[in-house]
């Protein structure tokens, strides 16, 4: 697997700010001269539903969507959503999962139960899972909104982009006032 050609799926709950992560990776790929396509979800599911962003980086990317069973990486902002998206991962794909839990309405009303431990049970148990308490790390870095940067930091360990390139992509994607916090969060995820 060439590390500069990869399929990534980012999932979470509508309203969690998953779009910033794909924006940063998009800029990173663009500045590295790679082909890139990103598919986002706008509309109804942004109201607290399951959301998914597809990111495809490489020279011959056509479809804007990652095929099931083809993702090199899965980033999940929420534990249950990671399990839901596990089918996107290829056999040796890696899931980077924020351990935070957000209960869906059927669980709140008692119509369904939240899985006891989605990260270690099937379907995720078939894959390498890197669990990250991104919310705590983000709060430590200065803002609970920086969860995305913590998770990106973790992903950055697997990709061959230079640290400087990441910094550049982050700087051009977040408001100047929050750059320091975001960078701190990124580094907290990366170490």
């Amino acid at each position: 697997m060439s590390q500069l050609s990869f399929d990534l799926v980012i999932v979470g709950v509508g309203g969690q700010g998953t779009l910033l992560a794909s924006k940063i990776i998009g800029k990173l790929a663009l500045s590295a001269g790679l082909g890139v396509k990103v598919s986002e979800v706008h509309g109804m599911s942004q109201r607290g539903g399951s959301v998914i962003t597809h990111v495809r980086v490489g020279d011959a990317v056509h479809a804007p969507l990652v095929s099931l069973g083809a993702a090199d990486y899965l980033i999940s902002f929420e534990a249950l959503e990671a399990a839901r998206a596990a089918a996107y991962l290829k056999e040796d794909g890696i899931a980077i999962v924020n351990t935070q839990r957000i209960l869906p309405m059927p669980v709140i009303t008692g119509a369904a139960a939240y899985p006891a431990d989605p990260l270690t049970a099937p379907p995720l148990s078939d894959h390498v899972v890197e669990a990250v308490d991104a919310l705590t790390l983000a709060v430590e870095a200065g803002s609970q909104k920086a969860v995305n940067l913590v998770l990106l930091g973790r992903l950055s360990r697997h990709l061959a982009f230079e640290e400087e390139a990441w910094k550049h992509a982050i700087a051009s994607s977040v408001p100047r006032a929050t750059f320091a916090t975001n960078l701190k969060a990124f580094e907290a995820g990366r170490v």
Partner: protein
Amino acid sequence: MDENKLISAEQFGMPSREPQLMLGNEAVARGAWEAGVHVVSSYPGTPSTEITEAAAKYEEVDVQWAPNEKVAAEVAFGAAMAGARAMTCMKHVGVNVAADPIFTAAYTGVNGGLVICCADDPAMHSSQNEQDSRYYARAAHIPMLEPADSQECLEYTKLAFELSEELDTPVFLRLTTRISHARSIVKQGKRESIPVKAYRKDMMKYVMMPAMARKRHVHVEKRESFLSEAANQMPINEITMRDQEIGVITSGACYQYVRDALPNASTLKLGMVYPMPMKLIKQFADQVKRLIVFEELEGLLEKDIRAAGIACEGKNLTGLQGELSVESIKHALLGTPMPVASGVDLPARPPVLCPGCPHRGVFYAVSKLGLRVMGDIGCYTLAALPPLSAMDACLCMGASIGMASGAERAQGKAFSKGTIAVLGDSTFLHSGIAPLIDAVYNRQSITVLILDNRITGMTGHQQNPASGLDIRNQPAPAVDIQKLCESCGVTHVSIVDPFDLKAVEKVLKEETERDEVSVVIARRACALLERSTIPPYVIDGCRNCGMCLKLACPAIERREKQVVINAALCIGCGMCAQVCPFKAIKEGVRAV
């Protein structure tokens, strides 16, 4: 000359030259700007909304939200007739609303170029049906272009303006969700400086009475046969020969899926899906052993190709529903098994009303009173889902009022004492006024509940004629919804704060009892518009009765033997405190 304007575009965060990763929708706006567009008038609708929002960032362009798609199309048409380059953008069902002006604009033709963008939503990510707008192109005899990535979104938009002026016709630009909401790399150009043409009175062209329309219909036919011929030479209809075993005719997002799924297949990519280049198709068919059409939704290219006597396959392989994908094309053609999600049963996560949403309390009260709800389209449609389960019907924008009137006619006046029609502010202004007039005029006794959250919420917070701001957030005259209803002849119009559950319940009880049309306006701004300054609520002494859970608030969770409020999500609306029979829910203390 234009340099200053280019700089101004850059100030809006859109550098003019560097390749950028752009949404298809942003690239359409960029293309329109480069084509010198003067006027954009649209009504929001997923997945088309960001085109107009992106256009509003270019200060040279006069951009506005209209109250509905019909008005948007008429404004754009008027601008084009008066010499400007104009564009109107809408989702697929918006074309139904705008169809009346569009069909006859095909007869009159234009003066400045007129582009109609319509964004279809295969698989219904955010829509109530899966209609295929390519049928509109055929029915109205309007050419239709379909880009397959963001770069093509930019280029085809420019081409659409040129075709429009050259052929004297509106031109459709058709997008789908995966084109509108996908980002890919775009090389940008400069804005062409296109002057607004002179206005010219021309009765034979623009006054569509039968005598004139008959003549214009001839023009429409001529134009179409000319374009059908020219289509065979258009570079955007492109044959690429690879392996001759399989030849695929396709367009838009499907083209991308085909390239990944069948990299060796020969392709005929249609950049113009109407009219079709039949000679080119015949030429392609003659060169391949097996001809397959991959298209989402209807099998419309396929039918026309067969009708032209060319054998092909298509919908027998893929069906009429949903989106195609790399996987489904491989499955259809190569027999590769469809990858399936794991067999593990996971709880679903349907979208929900946000914490602090003003719609919540209203539906809680409606549910408690056991009222039937003729619903409508907006965030509040989410109240149809459990546990609120407070909606009986939802058809299309503005239909709630007409449905309530119709139900009363079927079931009698008593039925309306247990029924309300519910719709949002944007939806009321879009298409709720005429049915309200109808209800008054025809002596109904329905009760209409307008959920006025001061914004068009579902599509991502667009201003509307009642919100007091325009698309660029500049102050604008605001419609007074109460006075508007009164002037339609409604004598009982009341306003209630949806956070006050008792008041909501009381007014709904009173108004449904009335033997004439009444309107209740539940007014409070969308919870996402203003940051709450109220501390999150806390539960102390929970008896676990579960009453607060009936509100369907994502911030309230049951944990083992008691209910807790998630402080990270709670915005302090206090509705739960009102429904707790044990007074166990209280305002918390804001952590500093």
